[in-house]
């Protein structure tokens, strides 16, 4: 970043803080009238909310006494809740409803849109898909709703198939490294355990690198799995340089003659530049063995919303992601964001996590995925 900009920043902040100083000193002078910290916008005829912008207590959030539960006034809430309860059930059958009506009308299109949006496909991708579908419906004179759904299904599958090869690269007779990255809590460690089990069962000699030295007990979690599946493990102290762990794992793999190294990294938000830099560094360490890094897998929680696209973009920019592992797809989350990721970034989903056991980690199958999405 431009140093001048930094200077300006600091100065602006300085100004603001000095202002804060004035405010604070004035506030303490007028401590008889605490309370309004920000004046509400000019009064209007509208009865504004009682709590709006008036903060009367800033220091404690926790009251020592039994508090009647603070229940902010939302008249509509219970209603909506009920309605959601109903519509959620209804939603599962929404496509059935479309089918039932037989012919395609405006409501059909609306329901299709809602189906896609509720699956986290996102508005831009949804609109693009439906535009294409409209064109097709016009060209092929689709009037039957069943045929329309089939056409949408075909569109989706075709798009996914077009993304390309989904096989994980594992070259025989050389050292292969697969690295797993992603934000916090997506299931990187569990995924690695499953992958390790799979590959050990396939007769590979696997070494796990516990390069998540940040989260408390992350290495213990991985160790537990390593012992269970019969893989080697290399770990460092908590707070140790993850680079050193990766380095050690590489040499350990060499001495043990292991052909696959799985690198577990600490979860990091893609917005934290220093942590993304750290990831680049880890990659460089692996790259000291040229060609060893075969897969850079972004682990993505199926319940992730539109932020998933940003995650994929940022991680790709930093370390060149080669594939996505979509986890926790056994819930009701549809993981529709991967449609946007595949369409915009061309990164294929390679594995899907459908449950707790190693057998629940499966290859991504476009047709199955789309069926679930439109279920």
């Amino acid at each position, binding site marked *: 970043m431009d140093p001048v900009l*930094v200077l300006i920043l600091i100065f602006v*902040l300085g100004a603001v*803080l000095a*202002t804060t100083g004035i405010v604070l000193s004035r506030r303490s002078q007028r401590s008889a009238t605490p309370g309004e910290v920000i004046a509400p916008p000019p009064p209007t005829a*509208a009865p504004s909310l009682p709590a709006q912008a008036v903060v009367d207590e800033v220091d404690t959030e926790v009251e020592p006494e039994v*508090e009647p539960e603070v229940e902010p006034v939302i008249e509509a809430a219970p209603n909506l809740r009920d*309605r959601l309860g109903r519509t959620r059930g209804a939603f599962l059958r929404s496509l059935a409803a479309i089918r039932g009506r037989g012919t395609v009308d405006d409501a059909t299109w609306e329901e299709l849109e809602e189906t896609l949006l509720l699956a986290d496909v996102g508005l831009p991708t949804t609109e693009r898909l439906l535009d294409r579908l409209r064109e097709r419906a016009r060209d092929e004179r689709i009037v039957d709703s069943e045929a329309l759904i089939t056409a949408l299904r075909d569109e989706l599958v075709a798009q996914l198939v077009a993304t390309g090869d989904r096989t994980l690269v594992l070259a025989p007779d050389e050292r292969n490294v697969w690295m797993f990255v992603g934000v916090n*809590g997506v299931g990187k460690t569990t995924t690695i355990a499953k992958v390790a089990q799979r590959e050990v069962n396939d007769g590979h000699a696997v070494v796990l690198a516990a390069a998540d030295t940040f989260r408390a007990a992350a290495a213990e979690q991985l160790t537990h799995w390593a012992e269970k599946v019969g893989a080697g493990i290399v770990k460092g102290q908590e707070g140790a340089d993850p680079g050193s762990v990766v380095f050690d794992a590489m040499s350990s793999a060499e001495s043990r003659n292991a052909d696959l190294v799985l690198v577990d990294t600490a979860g990091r938000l893609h917005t934290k530049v220093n942590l993304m830099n750290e990831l680049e560094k880890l990659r460089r360490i692996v790259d000291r063995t040229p060609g060893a890094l075969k897969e850079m897998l972004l682990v993505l929680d199926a319940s992730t919303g*539109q932020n998933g696209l940003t995650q994929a973009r940022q991680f790709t920019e930093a370390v060149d992601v080669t594939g996505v592992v979509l986890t926790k797809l056994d819930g009701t989350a549809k993981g529709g964001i991967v449609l946007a990721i595949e369409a915009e970034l061309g990164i294929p989903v390679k594995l899907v996590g459908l449950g707790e056991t190693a057998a629940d980690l499966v290859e991504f199958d476009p047709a199955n995925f789309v069926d679930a999405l439109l279920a």
Partner: protein
Amino acid sequence: MFDALSDRLDGVFKKLRSRGKLTDKDIDEVARELRVALLEADVNVRVARDFIARVKERASGAEVAKSLSPAQQVIKIVNDELITTLGGTTGKLTMSSKPPTVIMMAGLQGSGKTTASAKLAKLLKSQGRRPLLVGADLQRPAAVEQLRVLGQRIGVPVYSEATDPVQVATGALEEAARLGRDIVIVDTAGRLQIDADLMDELRAVRDAVHPHDTLLVVDAMTGQEAVNVASEFNETVGLTGVVLTKIDGDARGGAALSVKEVVGKPILFAGTGEKLDEFEAFHPDRMASRILGMGDVLTLIEKAEATFDEEEMAKAGDKLRKGQLTLEDFLQQMRQVKKMGPLQNVLGMLPGVPKELKDAEVDEGEIARVEAIICSMTPAERRDPSLINGSRRMRIAQGSGVTTADVNGLLKQFKMVQQMMKGMGKGKMPRLPKELGDLDLSQLQ
């Protein structure tokens, strides 16, 4: 965090600002943009629809205040509705009059329950409470171990045993009585809301300990699914509140709106970073302001209050008004700013900071460099930079390991700011950055 949403609304409002009167067409346009913004922010489709309907109704209704321009009117309506949807007032934990107060944490895998438990314990401890952490997550390998490490780090005891979650929870109550802890925080295993067995188990834990608060931990990055998760957990165990985690990313956090609307329970806390003290009370009104691009001045002031020496600040304020701010004062300010946390976070809370600045990656190293330059000056030079001549400049540059050009740059910038501040002391707001001037100082008092 909610930046993108406020950007989009900004776009709509800019268009509105250029017009005299709010027409039906304008309202439709706002509604359309609002829909895009809300969906992009992962607000549930149905919640968004409802939200927009309310905004539209109010916008076209009779509530036209003479004192507001049409644009202000819409902003106010959207703001009010956002606050309503996010929860109206700041919620509170239900504290039992007879200790211990039991808090149960629940949520999906990976939403951040264990970390949130520890952070909550730390927060309560800092408020003079005596929490006990309970590791009832016997599912994930090393989850209890993780809690133990965190507990050790924050100085809070952790209780667990390798039996089953219900027994752990019951044992924890005895342990709390034995140790005289007044709050018990039960960290449960992550589970999918459709996993009947695990949901039954959660209910059993609840029935064993009768929690006063049952908090659902929700990842701010969650998409449409948030609604299903929240309503299922609410139906099964009866939630009293929500903890929103990972809001330090750039997810727009529409999940917050959805969850609040669906379960009708307040969002109590927000996790704002990886460190254990990055956890704060959730303020719906502030969050709404933030969504609308008004910045989060209250949090900033609160943070400043917690970090700053009031006397120092008052002194600096006085000097500022008289236009006597020196490099020495500036150095002090800078150090205090640093104490408030990463510059980036502080900056995000400021109202009206241009997007380029907010997005700019702040290199903390640069700040250290500025600090080094000022530290290489003599006290006299800091008080009166005009003393600095060629040879002094050289000395300063050498002392701080920069070039004389850098020193010059700093001095030049400082002079500008000094002038800015003089104006400010007289009641004018600085010109730079422009939008900062929109913030009326009187609003702060």
